[in-house]
């Protein structure tokens, strides 16, 4: 199968700090691909490189085998790179409906005029209904986003991203701050996105339980370098990975 997202020798430095060092890996459509590594390993930098907030110093990024290394951030989003953030980013003073419509807007880029006449984009409500089956909470359209609890907002951000019909979805720590039930729901949602919709998912997560449970493939980063790849079992028994996480014995 052709990879949907491919990084080829991507490098990025900030001053003296190497945030991404020759990173090469690829994500297949319909796959949940874990991206793990200790704090400061460069995971978020990599997300920012993929979604175009930073441009790589060298190396290339391909979406669907098309080079997008020089494409500006908003165009990458339109080409199908969806993303969620560590702390969900919503319009603070807008209704939940408006916030969700932002996702649909992305899927209907030329809907400016249509939206002006009150059109909502194709099948917005039907699709939302479909996705809302996975999350276990209720809301009122008109409520401000602040009416939702933190965990609910995190789930809704994934829903919003899916409304934009991405080819690849970058999901940044979806489980942080969520309770166990919510984590299960998020996993079901991500599984659905990958298996039923064929979206390639790149998942940063610190909850190893979640990573090991849901990912088919994992990349481990440390100091901007890929230090291990493979399936969960391989990775969790990889000595280099354990060392990156727990550190090396001083005397070892």
């Amino acid at each position, binding site marked *: 199968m052709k990879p949907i997202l491919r990084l080829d020798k991507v490098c990025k430095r900030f*001053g*003296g*700090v190497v945030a991404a060092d020759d990173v090469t890996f690829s994500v297949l459509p319909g796959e949940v691909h874990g991206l793990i590594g*200790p*704090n*400061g390993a460069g995971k978020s930098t990599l997300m920012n490189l993929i979604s175009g907030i930073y441009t790589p110093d060298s190396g290339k990024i391909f979406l669907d085998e098309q080079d997008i290394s020089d494409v500006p951030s908003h165009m990458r989003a339109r080409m199908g790179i969806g993303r969620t953030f560590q702390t969900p980013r919503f319009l603070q003073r807008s209704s939940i409906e408006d916030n969700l419509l932002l996702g649909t807007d992305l899927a209907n880029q030329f809907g400016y005029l249509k939206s002006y006449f009150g059109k909502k984009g194709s099948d917005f409500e039907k699709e939302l209904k479909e996705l809302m089956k996975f999350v276990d909470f209720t809301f009122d359209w008109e409520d401000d986003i602040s009416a939702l*609890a*933190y965990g609910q907002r995190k789930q809704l951000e994934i829903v919003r991203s899916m409304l934009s019909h991405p080819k690849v979805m970058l999901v940044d*720590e979806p489980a*942080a*701050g969520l309770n166990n039930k919510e984590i299960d729901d998020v996993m079901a949602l991500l599984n659905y996105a990958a298996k039923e919709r064929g979206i390639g998912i790149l998942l940063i997560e*610190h*909850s*190893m*339980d979640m*990573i*090991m*449970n849901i990912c088919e493939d994992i990349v481990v980063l440390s*100091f901007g370098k890929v230090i291990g790849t493979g399936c*969960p*079992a391989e990775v*969790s*028994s990889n000595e280099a990975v*354990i060392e990156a*996480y*727990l*550190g*090396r*014995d*001083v*005397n070892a």
Partner: protein
Amino acid sequence: MLKITDLHAYYGPIEALKGINVHVEAGKITCLIGSNGAGKTTLLNAISGTIKRTGSIIVEGKGEIIDKHSRFIARRGIIHVPEGRHIFPGLTVRENLETGTVNWHGFFGRQPYDKELKEVYKLFPRLEERKNQLGWSLSGGEQQMLAIGRAMMARPAVLMLDEPSMGLAPLVVQELFEKIVEINKQQGIPILLVEQNARLALEISHYAYIIDGGSVKLEGSSSELKNDPRVIEAYLGKFAKKN
């Protein structure tokens, strides 16, 4: 030296600390380990008074500080070296070190601080070499040294270090941790160390707490915990155990 009882703290909507009890003994290195998002950094911020918290934090000989503003906590010698170092980027190395003295020196004071400066330069000779460089131009390791040196200028009663190894190359980390041990041994300053690099932290510390989900999951002397499989589990989850 520092006795923390039933500490709760909030980061926006999340209850980040759910009743933590931690004791920092005089002259010892106490470490807090645990995976990212466990609440380690929050604990330090709660102690140094930069976030809202409830419970009790008693400094030996100096009383309760839970209701104190962060700058009065600093004046009691509780010095927090924050995650990400927070060097003043537009000040030179020397000036950065100088800012460390404000908690005992006072805003308009005129006491000399040559002695402290000399000691910090002795501890980190690299800082003396670069004393006229601006903070932002230093490498990550040097910045971390500067942050610790700046805290040493403050005549700390307790030193709290947040992830000093973050983003540093292994050799630099090694050097840095030797210095941390040296500070503790030679000057007897108790250290509360937050680290993700658990093996290293357990190696140099005397007592350790493993934090997960905002509460203490496990505690014990570092030498015991070093070989406890539950430590690995706290990091890599229960799946790691199967292998």
